[in-house]
């Protein structure tokens, strides 16, 4: 270990550069000498030397300004896949994230999407310029038509403002921030339970989150009375988040008659509906059927927000494609709304990504591609419905205690099994089945081959774990 080198600045070295050196206590020659010194002496001596010449400062190698941070917990949903990937067992099942899988357990890129990608690639006239802050115009128009119906009076009257968003998450976030800035009521009601990311999105957007009863554990169905009571006692003007179809995580949807009652209640209390539509076409297999609840609300002439995602129904997960639509009372208001939405988007990411939206627009605007899409979409929905039936049959065949009919009554990607977190841990540990601790399983992750493994695991969990 070399003896420490002590450096002193001397005034014989003139610092030629800065005019500020007269006011600074640390001349540039000090700095040069100290930098040199750092290369000549070893690390152990540096701390000693540091205390002699250089005043330690937080960002200079010793103390970070972020030293007080703790490691954040894994995202409860995305963390499931992380854990799954780490598991070395040859027989494991990922029923965590809601991403569609084929019978072979593989991710799926829709054929119609692949064809459009090639088309886009071969079109050399395309460029990668910034798209407008609100996204691609044709994408926005077509998305609005998809969700509200081509003949929607709101569209015809120019009362719909649509902006491209970063899938469902991004569209919800932009909508939430817009409301926090411009809407008189800062409270949003979320169903109990709801997608785990909803509360965080709206809280960070600046809203206060409350809940309304939704799921009835006893029936594994809708707590309709509770829902009506809670929305009935909400403060006037509150925002209400509604899952348009295929409720996540429960798979429990109101009937159309129940939707009509919900609509009447919401309008009578002057509540503002905010729809989250992440599964249009994916739930029943029909794009129009899955949009009925939203269209019911639009038909009464009132205002609403709707977030759409193309992650599942077009398999565009990673491309982050979605849209936020705001239906206003008049065309003038719709245009004010658009101008203010831009001010929310610009400081978040300036403008949305072009790739995914280009694919969606190409599919929606071409009749043949659109038809091909609906066929592939129905195939995905049908496979999921078939998995539900197979799981239900498998549990019945095993005589697993309990009523499992909710598996076939619930709709969409997910089934809320009703299993508790101990039972879930058991299934993960003993059977290497990965799901979220609320007992939600992604039916898309099941196949004919793996259903019996899951049925065995559920049977064991129910009979051996309280």
């Amino acid at each position, binding site marked *: 270990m070399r003896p420490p080198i002590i450096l002193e600045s001397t005034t014989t070295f003139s610092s030629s550069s800065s*005019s*500020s050196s007269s*006011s600074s*206590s*640390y001349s*540039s020659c000090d*700095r040069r000498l100290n930098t040199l010194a750092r290369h000549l002496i070893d690390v152990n001596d540096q701390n000693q030397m540091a205390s002699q010449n250089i005043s330690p*400062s*937080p*960002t*200079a*190698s010793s103390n*970070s*300004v972020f*030293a007080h941070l703790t490691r*954040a917990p894994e*995202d409860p949903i995305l963390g499931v896949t992380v854990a799954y990937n780490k598991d070395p067992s040859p027989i494991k099942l990922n029923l965590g994230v809601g991403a569609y899988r084929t019978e072979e357990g593989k991710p799926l*890129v829709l054929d119609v999407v692949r064809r459009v*990608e*090639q088309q886009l*690639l071969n079109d050399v006239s395309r*460029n*990668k310029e*910034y798209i407008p802050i609100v996204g691609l115009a044709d994408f926005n128009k077509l998305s609005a038509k998809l969700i509200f119906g081509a003949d929607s009076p709101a569209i015809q009257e120019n009362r719909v403002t649509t902006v491209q968003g*970063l*899938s469902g998450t*991004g569209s919800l976030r932009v909508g939430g921030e817009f409301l926090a800035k*411009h809407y008189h009521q800062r409270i949003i009601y979320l169903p109990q339970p709801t997608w785990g*990311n909803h509360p*965080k*999105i709206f809280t*960070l957007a600046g809203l206060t989150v409350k809940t309304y009863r939704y799921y009835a554990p006893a029936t594994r169905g809708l707590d309709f009375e509770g829902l009506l009571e809670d929305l009935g006692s909400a403060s006037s*003007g509150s925002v209400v988040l509604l899952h348009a179809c295929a409720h996540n995580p429960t798979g429990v949807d109101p009937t*159309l*008659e129940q939707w*009509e009652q919900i609509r*009447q209640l919401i*309008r009578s209390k*002057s509540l503002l509906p905010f729809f989250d539509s992440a599964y249009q076409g994916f739930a029943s297999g029909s794009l129009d059927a899955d949009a009925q609840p939203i*269209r019911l609300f639009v*038909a*009464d*002439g*009132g205002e609403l927000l709707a977030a759409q995602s193309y992650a599942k129904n077009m398999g565009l997960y*990673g491309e*982050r494609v979605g849209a936020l639509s705001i239906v206003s009372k*008049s065309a003038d208001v719709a*245009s004010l709304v658009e*101008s*203010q939405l*831009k*001010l929310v988007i*610009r*400081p*978040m*990411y300036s*403008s949305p*990504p072009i*790739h*995914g939206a280009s694919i969606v627009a190409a599919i929606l605007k071409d009749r043949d591609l659109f038809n091909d899409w609906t066929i592939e979409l129905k195939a995905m929905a049908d496979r999921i419905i078939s998995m539900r039936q197979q799981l239900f049959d498998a549990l019945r065949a095993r005589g697993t205690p309990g009523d499992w009919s909710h598996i076939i009554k619930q709709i969409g990607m997910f089934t809320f099994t009703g299993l508790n977190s101990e039972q879930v841990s058991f299934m993960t540990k003993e059977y290497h089945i990965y799901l979220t601790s609320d007992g939600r399983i992604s039916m898309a992750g099941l196949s004919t081959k793996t259903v019996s493994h899951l049925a065995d695991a559920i049977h064991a969990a129910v009979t051996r774990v309280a």
Partner: protein
Amino acid sequence: MAIHNLLNGQFLNRSSVIGARFMSSWFRNIQPAPKDPILGVTEAFLADQSPNKVNVGVGAYRDDNGKPVVLECVREAERRIAGNQFMEYLPMGGSIHLVEESLKLAYGENSELIKDKRIAAVQALSGTGACRLFAAFQQRFHPNTQIYIPVPTWANHHNIWRDSGVPIKTFRYYHPESKGLDFSGLMDDIMNAPDGSFFLLHACAHNPTGVDPSEEQWREISSQIKAKGHFPLFDMAYQGFASGSPERDAKAIRIFLDDGHLIGLAQSYAKNMGLYGQRVGCLSVLCEDAKQAVAVKSQLQLIARPMYSNPPLHGALVVSTVLGDPELKKLWLQEVKVMADRIIGMRTTLRENLENLGSSLPWQHITNQIGMFCYSGMTPEQVDRLTSEFHIYMTRNGRISMAGLNTGNVGYVANAIYEVTKST
């Protein structure tokens, strides 16, 4: 039945539309938002019918024919990607390959910091998204701090920190008289800021002025920032695009790293890879050690999740394909140099034209400044005249996007600038 009729637009009775039709809009009191000063310029340009119109507004590269460019290396990368990739969700922190390549580019191919895993880094939505993540992160973990931004700076910086709830202060940067750097003002402001303040620095090709500190000045800035314990956040939107050399353009960052700063860095591939609309970037925060880097990254992910869950895939695949393949990377380096050289050539030509026209004003700042933009020194009124009389579109702060100039229009623009500045 009632529902059917409702959907068919026939209202059976009033009670089926309780409340809805008789309320006025919740949003009627919303004020129309002002047009974005930068993007609004392009809108106005597009609406102009004049055959002589020139757009020197938005900072997007154009070739000598005034056309947008998709780089060859990018086209090739896309050919390799199409049909071969799934479209699954990326992790919240984005593509690991994209992040790895970005860190190598910025911190150095063989950086010890990378080897020691000391850098917390996540994919972000281009430069805007990277800054926004950092601003939200700063607000969460240092809620009582402010951000010091240079005067002037890219207008959206103000919006980003404001919407993140972080108060903004400024430091002197541009010196209008010399159209260069107000170095002593800058150093004074660094010194007078409270210890431990957060400073936003443009790593190269300052937007909107094109004025960068010299290497020697960067060393001074680094040492003064160190003495005050400030946190340096670099916004690097033009690496490679400024001088033509990514290594050279990263010099300021390397100086700070040598000095031991724990920096933050927002990187964008919008300009240097021409991926504007793909929204690809990276935010990194250099930490004391690997353990802290893991913690910081996990916290950045928690900010991304309620904003967009995970970042877009396509652009990330393009960048990591280009940078990860030696041949494609070589091609990229050539193409980025071509872009930078064309811009530098336009600076020279514009300045020469103005001097040859006999303008009595000094124009050497055009060639002293670097990168996409030139801060011409013209007043808003002069800019308005350029637009109304000559159909030349630019932002009213006198910022010219050099990429909008080409051999076909530089003479016209020089003449117009000469005309409107004659009386000055």
